[in-house]
């Protein structure tokens, strides 16, 4: 209950301030107005349509980032040569904001949706790969040795030790990657899409339909929170033995 006090107070103050004109309703419409619009847009399906589109792009982008990311991360963690071979290339591309690749990707791939997904996948791929790689490198060496000693070799060693051992790190990478993919999908939608939450956000700003902008904002925030919560629940299910290792410095 306590965590809700502060936001409730803020919302309450906002409502009053906006209704009395203390805050300009043009910039800060009353939360009740926003809520009403929110409900209306859910009811007539428009919001769910936008949400669904953003979600779909997010899902595709995330899979595009996560699957190669884990594979490459594992490879880089297990083989020094792979790591040294790929690191310089990655280090150069990684700092470039994903959204800048949109032009490039649109040239290469005519289909707009695919372009959005690929663009959003870029940096997330690196995040997943690097976090996974670090996970492999931080495997307890003694555990690895013990497993070998008790007869686990090659594929068995991979399946019974390497993979489960790296799973916590992989999950952290997926969590971070998912968060980042959401950022880029929204950003790309703001730049170049007609539909989707980011598009609604941007377009409603351009025509100064501020309530609609807030609705989109709230929905994006809710989406972000829901995703984080979902990943956390999943992690607790799949990896009962480990804690989240937290942020890994790039």
């Amino acid at each position, binding site marked *: 209950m306590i965590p809700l006090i502060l*936001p409730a107070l803020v919302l309450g103050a906002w409502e009053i301030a906006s209704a009395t004109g203390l805050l300009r309703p043009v910039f800060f419409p009353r939360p009740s107005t926003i809520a009403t619009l929110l409900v209306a847009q859910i009811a007539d399906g428009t919001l769910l349509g936008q949400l669904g589109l953003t979600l779909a792009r997010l899902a595709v982008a995330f899979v595009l980032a996560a699957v190669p990311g884990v594979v490459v991360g594992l490879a880089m963690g297990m083989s020094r040569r792979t790591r040294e071979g790929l690191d*310089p290339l990655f280090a150069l591309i990684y*700092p470039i904001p994903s959204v800048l690749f949109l032009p490039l990707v649109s040239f*290469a791939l005519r289909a707009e949706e695919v372009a959005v997904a690929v663009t959003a996948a870029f940096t997330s791929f690196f995040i997943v790969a690097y976090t996974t790689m670090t996970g492999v490198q931080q495997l307890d060496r003694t555990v690895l040795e013990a497993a070998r000693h008790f007869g686990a070799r090659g594929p068995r060693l991979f399946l019974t030790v390497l993979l489960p051992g790296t799973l916590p790190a992989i999950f952290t990478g997926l969590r971070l990657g998912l968060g980042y993919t959401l950022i880029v999908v929204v*950003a790309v939608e703001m730049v170049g899409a007609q539909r989707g939450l980011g598009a609604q956000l941007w377009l409603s*700003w351009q025509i100064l339909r501020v309530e609609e*902008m*807030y609705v989109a904002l709230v929905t994006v925030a809710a989406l972000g*929170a829901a995703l984080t919560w979902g990943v956390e629940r999943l992690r607790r299910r799949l990896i009962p033995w480990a804690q989240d290792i937290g942020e890994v410095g790039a």
Partner: protein
Amino acid sequence: MIGAALPLLLVAGWEIAARTALVSPRYFPPPTVIAAMLGRLLTAGEFWGDALTTLARLAVAFLVAALAGVPLGLGMGLWRPLRRALEPAMAMLYPLPKVALLPLFLILLGVGEGAFVFTAAVTAFFQIATSTAGGAATIDPRLVEAGRNYGARGIALFRKVILPAALPAVLTGLRLGLGLALITVIAVEFVAAKSGLGHLVFRYWQMLLTGEMYAAFLLIGLMGLGATRGLRALQRRALAWQEWRH
């Protein structure tokens, strides 16, 4: 040795593919052309103007984020009531892509530097505050006890024990925050600004000057790389006493 192999191979392959029109040279100009563009960019005035603009925005955003984030993070990490009050709000806002706040800031602060800088500052702020809070909250309590036991109190305790103990987490947060701030500044410039490196890339895109565009990418990448590597080196220097595990 190996490290250079892959990029070189890619570059060589790209050169050949572009020259032989295997891929459209309009959209994928050969690396030699890009290199020429790179030279032109660096010598032309406009690039440096934009680069400076971006760096200026980055500097302000980062400073604001750090000045707000570190004290707040320390407060949250060290003082439980504050953490209890703010943590749920922070946890709710952390997953929100701060770039989504850009339109809001544009409305509030108008289309101008304020909105751009603020969006980047907010993004970095959350990272810095969260990392700092985490670091401050996990200081070994025995260190604090030992400090108190040997007579350090109040400000002295803070300066001599708590701050150094939290420093690694603080610096990591700052490093991550800097990276995020840079990414956000450039993304915001791309979307909404009329100056800066992000906007430069956007202009090149509109005018289909692909060679220049790639050259700009390269420079941005190098800039980001330089910033984070530089900060990491500084971190290593400042924390020479810490065993470096990365």
